[in-house]
């Protein structure tokens, strides 16, 4: 079960890495906000939960989340077989993996530069 979930997370990671740009903002604090904002909203869309999009910042996260959720649903038919709890677990795993690849495990020395 754990291996299956890991494999699914890797498929989602692969899509994001090949098709998205939002995960690569230039500083660690910015990447944390991007990953949190967009992946949380993606999870909410997939789970048909309400999504905040009133402020410009929330709206721009939501825009990326809508496109990501649509792409996931279109490409990964197995997503439709998961219940909401499983989707939440999957998206939590995705968030942790993305944080590792782009922030905590990243070799990019500029991430901690205090200036832009």
């Amino acid at each position: 079960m754990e291996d299956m979930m890991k494999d699914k997370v890797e498929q989602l990671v692969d899509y994001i890495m090949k098709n998205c740009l939002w995960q690569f903002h230039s500083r660690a604090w910015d990447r944390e906000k991007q990953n949190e904002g967009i992946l949380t909203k993606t999870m909410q869309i997939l789970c048909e939960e309400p999504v905040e999009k009133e402020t410009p910042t929330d709206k721009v996260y939501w825009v990326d989340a809508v496109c990501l959720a649509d792409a996931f649903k279109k490409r990964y038919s197995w997503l439709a077989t998961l219940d909401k709890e499983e989707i939440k677990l999957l998206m939590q795993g995705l968030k942790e993996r993305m944080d590792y690849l782009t922030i905590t495990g990243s070799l990019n020395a500029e991430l901690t530069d205090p200036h832009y």
Partner: protein
Amino acid sequence: MPYHKFKCSECIPEREKHAVIKGPGEDLTSALPLGYLNTIPGSISERGCAYCGAKHVIGTPMKDVIHMSHGPVGCTYDTWQTKRYISDNDNFQLKYTYATDMKEKHIIFGAEKLLKQNIIEAFKAFPNIKRMTLYQTCASALIGDDINAIAAEVMEEMPEVDIFVCNSPGFGGPSQSGGHHKINIAWINQKVGNVEPKITSDYVINYVGEYNIQGDQEVMVDYFRRMGIQVLSTFTGNGSYDDLRSMHRAHLNVLECARSAEYICNELRVRYGTPRLDIDGFGFEALGTSLRKVGLFFGIEDRAQAIIDEETARWKPEMDWYKERLQGKKVCLWPGGSKLWHWAHAIREDMGVNVVSVYTKFGHQGDMEKGIARCEEGALAIDDPNELEALEALEMLKPDIIFTGKRPGEVAKKLRVPYLNAHAYHNGPYKGFEGWVRFARDIYNAIYSPIHQLSFVDISKDEIPAQTSFLTQKMISDVNLSEEVTASKELREYTGNYDTITALRNKTYPDFPSEKKLSAV
């Protein structure tokens, strides 16, 4: 770490950490070269200087401006005309280049008087132009000429003119990227917020990090206008100086080249609360998603979708004609910075080519993260390569084509590798749906050029194939294709016009009634 050591650089051991091969199971936490560091002494870099990055890349595409360099004439001459960033005002910014022509005596006695005289003369020579960008160079920076003070003096004496000062001498960073940073910050500090624009739409964007190479900006602005979006400013291709002073009034910053222009987007986000949306203007799916995102932001997704559907129906059959013929071709994607990630995945998806290597001259580690993430296993990623390393890589990888600048491109030709100009393009624009097909056509023509085939013949030993000397691209490319493909009624070669830009300049756009009261300040 899967570092790749070039044989030619064994005498420069520090170079080892500037190249990696993405092996099986490797990800960004194990395969990432160093980047944006000072070039190692002894390595003949292909980089530009920080002055070039500020003036040539970002400043000069502004169209209604005199771009004056305070320094020797060579600085301005060598950063003139090579990037084909056209404009809709008869290419004023490309026609002329300006310098104060500093000589040795000015280094000793100072050149501030010379600068003031040149500024005034330039404005008098072009009385319809009232805006100027003024660039520091190594020579004027080292002697400490106060170009801000001179600019202020002139603006006091000539109140109708406005001058922007960019203090980015050539030594102001490891590469041209240092200049990108400096001019971004200088522009927002000095100029943004100085002009209040006329708002004509409910939906207002700045289009940032777009330089109108062969008309790229005009293609993208056409899509935005068809959606009823006001493009308040473009930073900076085909952009107007005064429009760029009003960037603070946009609702959204749509960012294309994050390498050269994320700084101003980040500052606009912090200072004015304007969000940043990174997009890809290249590739059918990537561009479609990008337009959709902008549409979603403003609640006009249907308008974006209508454009995507229309453009895809018109151009996809032509893209697929080339994809059938480019399948599996090996590409070295060696541009300056952002195109390594803009193109890496899109050319594989839309054209079927295989990116065997990416390199960047001035990209940061963040650009390599994006580029490597979008490549398949086995790709060789090189930061700030020198010419010998590039030659060694070409001999090792044996690509079918290389996308790079004209200097390394001409070198590649000597190894019988055709090249396309990744910076200024061959037959652009390459952005947009039609532009992407034009890129595929250029790739096809380069790989299957009958003239190029002759370069593989070694006249010192090979027999000259006189009996088969008449060839066309199609005779070469279609040899191994199935009849289903060659006889397809769906697929077709590019059918667009030679000039795709002029018509856009006279186009009228649908009138979308405003739902809000518009401000006209």
